[in-house]
């Protein structure tokens, strides 16, 4: 538990000082929003409502990949990762600390991107803010647990920026399908649909 809290504190403090992870994730996500804004018809059309959840989660996933890569590459500076490996503790606590820090930073970025996305694409996200936040939280839990694990695996590999998405994206398909479907149902009906039938329907 000590290690979990220490790693969480250290990662958040480091990010607060440098802001390099959050800024990179935000800029990248905003770029995605801008590109989609120019390539898709504007206004709250039914086509837009059908497409928006997928686009939003694409922005979230790409932003998260940037964040996961940085979360462990910072441990390579001065070989701090060896310092963590030498700790007489269950390494699961290190994973939990890293994953929670990733979740907090991703959550901050997601909140801003959702607001921008809602404004740009005229989506009524405010009306469904609470259930939407729940969907994003659950989806992000899946993203961060899988992403943090594979970022740890990929960190010592030569092409870690390429390795991470290759490793994590296939495993994230069920999480993303569920998150996109739940977001779609929220935007279309204003209600959450957690039914897993869609997996069989696909």
């Amino acid at each position, binding site marked *: 538990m*000590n*290690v979990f*809290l*220490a*790693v969480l*504190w*250290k990662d958040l*403090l*480091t990010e607060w*000082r*440098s802001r390099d992870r959050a800024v990179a994730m935000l800029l990248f996500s905003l770029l995605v929003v801008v590109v989609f804004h120019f390539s898709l018809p504007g206004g709250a059309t039914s086509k837009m409502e059908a497409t928006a959840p997928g686009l939003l989660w694409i922005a979230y996933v790409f932003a998260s990949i940037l964040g996961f890569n940085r979360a462990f590459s*910072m441990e390579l*500076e*001065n*070989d*701090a990762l*060896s*310092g*963590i*490996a*030498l*700790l*007489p*503790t*269950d390494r699961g606590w290190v994973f939990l600390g890293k994953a929670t820090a990733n979740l907090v930073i991703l959550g901050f970025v997601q909140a801003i991107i959702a607001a921008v996305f809602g404004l740009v694409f005229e989506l009524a996200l405010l009306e469904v803010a609470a259930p939407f936040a729940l969907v994003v939280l659950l989806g992000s839990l899946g993203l961060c647990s899988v992403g943090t694990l594979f970022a740890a695996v990929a960190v010592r590999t030569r092409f870690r920026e390429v390795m991470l998405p290759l490793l994590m994206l296939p495993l994230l398909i069920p999480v993303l399908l569920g998150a996109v479907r739940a977001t779609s149902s929220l935007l279309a009906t204003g209600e959450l649909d957690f039914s897993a039938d869609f997996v069989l329907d696909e």
Partner: protein
Amino acid sequence: MKTPAIAASNLEKRFGRAVALRGIDFSIPDGTSLAVVGPNGAGKSTLLRLIAGLARPTAGTLQIGGDDSHRRATRGRLGYIGHATLLYPALTARENLIFAARCYGLPDPAGRADALLADEGLAPVADRAAGGFSRGMAQRLAIARGLVHDPKVVLLDEPFTGLDRSAAERFASRIDGMRRDGRTLVLVSHDVRFAAQVADAAIVLSDGRIAQAFFDAPPDAAELEHAYLAAGEARQ
């Protein structure tokens, strides 16, 4: 018979077909300062990683205080100080030590950090980011980080790398202080003169084997240098 601080028996480490270490046998009592020297690729760092529990031997046994080196509890008895400082540049000196102290579950992380900063003469710069430290200051902070949990065994991996002469002299005297505290030290270094200065025993590695060992008496600098050069020539 007293349990040795470190005991290696027929230790072997392979990476695929490549043999990094083979037939390594040695045993040192508590409080010994062991220098491990040898040319590049001799297996020094691999041996240190095995002792630190960061890698597992392919064959043979390696025990720290009677316990297998890769056991979790064993890692708590080890401190590591290397040319890589293990520090986070964005954190201040104090925050780096508080982080390490928290990770080791110490009861008063801030108090421990302040005590170590005072020991290393870093109290005036305690609130400066470690990323702005000179190499010598960073190395002193790395010493404090390595000793934060008061380890019985301290592993020193090329700690003189990048230090100027006066900083290296200061560091050698700090190592001497660790010896006087009764810690067991394992020093991996290319700097044979400094190694001889701080060691009670030494092994010279060449091609993953012990080419020469000095266990009966503290190694003489000239003798150790001669053995080191011979190991390098044998490799060529």
